[in-house]
């Protein structure tokens, strides 16, 4: 594959990942004690969970057409973030005993349920209400597509080189898959953390006022991904030993 095409694919992937993080309801430490809406952990953990699952499912489709790799990555990420939010909600509802509710909006934009009455005074909501759940699934979709795209671009570039050629032609090259997987994982973490700096640690989803910062976050991820892609080209240039 042309190195320029790889840089382009990696950049697009980084933008998708960075944009996707803005949709995920990251609650951070306040959510861990059920005083804020979202999943009670940081972006890095959610990115590790859903990103790695997406990469594994995308890598399972190695050698298939591009759309299948992207769809597989997206489904993996969406499933993982969906399960995380669902089980988190069980803990908030039956364990802590709070109603999934957002303090950022008066009525849930999707279900139109009133929110304000159910927010415990002094807190910023609890659990993962419907709008946050839908937003999180969209975030998983974007992140999974991004991770799959980066994996596909690096793998397809590497596998044509003699050092990474598969042992039996037509089969998967394990070394190329691992290098591509690590590169995509690294790209995932870099963009997830930059996006997380942009949102200041916590966000509820696309209805959160902080979501308006997304252009700045996407620009930052774009620049960081271009530089990462440029360094990634060295992987291809050195693969001819």
């Amino acid at each position, binding site marked *: 594959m042309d190195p320029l095409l790889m840089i382009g694919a990696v950049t697009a992937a980084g933008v998708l990942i960075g944009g996707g993080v803005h949709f995920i309801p990251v609650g951070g430490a306040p959510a861990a004690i059920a005083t804020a809406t979202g999943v009670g952990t940081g972006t890095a953990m959610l990115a590790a969970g859903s990103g790695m699952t997406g990469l594994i499912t995308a890598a399972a489709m190695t050698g298939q057409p591009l759309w299948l790799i992207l769809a597989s990555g997206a489904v993996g990420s969406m499933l993982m973030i969906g399960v995380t939010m669902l089980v988190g909600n069980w803990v908030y509802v039956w364990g802590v005993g709070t109603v999934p509710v957002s303090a950022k909006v008066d009525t849930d934009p999707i279900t139109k349920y009133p929110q304000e009455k159910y927010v415990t005074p002094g807190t910023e909501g609890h659990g993962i209400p419907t709008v946050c759940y839908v937003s999180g699934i969209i975030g998983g979709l974007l992140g999974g597509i991004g991770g799959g795209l980066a994996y596909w671009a690096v793998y397809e570039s590497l596998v044509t080189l003699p050092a990474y050629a598969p042992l039996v032609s037509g089969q998967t090259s394990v070394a190329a898959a*691992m*290098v591509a997987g690590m*590169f995509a994982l690294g790209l995932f973490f870099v963009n997830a953390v930059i996006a997380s700096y942009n949102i200041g640690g916590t966000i509820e989803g696309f209805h959160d006022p902080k979501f308006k910062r997304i252009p*700045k976050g996407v620009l*930052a991820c774009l620049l960081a991904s271009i530089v990462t892609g440029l360094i990634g080209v060295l992987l291809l240039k050195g693969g001819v*030993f």
Partner: protein
Amino acid sequence: MSVAGGGGGESAVDPKMTAGIGIVGGLIGIYLTPINPVLGPLLAALGAVCAIVWGADAIARVASYGLGTGVPSIGYMSLAVGVIGTLAGLAGGIMMGSAYTMLAPLLGVVLAVILGGVIAIIAKKIVGMKIPVLVTGTMELTGAAAISVLGFSAAIAGSYAMAPILKSVVATGFIGLLFILNTMAIQHPFNACLGPQEDRTRTLKLAASTGFMAMAIVGLLGMGSSKAWWVISIIGALAWFISMRMFLQASKEDAASVAWSGMWPKEEEH
């Protein structure tokens, strides 16, 4: 002492000293890998532990300002950059020709530091992070991450060249384990010790213990590819035991000063 969110503050340990230990110790360890099939990988693993201690000090200096995203996030990011830089540097070293294979690890570290610096500048200029030491701190952190990954990879593979590392570290999937293992070793010490009365000497004792614990596991990973695996594992486990004991004693001493003389006075009462 330094308080998370307060930032700055006097550190009990000179940053130049930990940086020196990390850079010099780490690179010497990696470059001495070929001298002997047993001693070389052991030195590489010890070099990686030096880098982990440096990384733990760097993360403490950056994260004491309060990142808003938690300490682990910057740890994961630095290891992501470190792994990308290491792989690209090792591969890029081959491009320059076999005479320059020597330069490959150094190139990996330099690439990681450059990428870390670029990300920190982006975070500062575009995102608007207000941490004064963000750029230098992230550069140190990514450098430490790259050296620690290189050191442990060399310890497993028994060489710092791309081909053996690709065969016994990357293709086996151990690189993914190193990613998380080194992240934990670098970010956990400050994450566990932060807060008022954080004593950097005590934090770095914990960093040494997490680093040696990682080294003991890395020794086991090298079972199939390195003759030195049991030496690395046993020395790592012994050093882990000693450093963990030192950390526990330091924690008990600091706890005793509170137990015997009461809680420290509040800021207003000075």
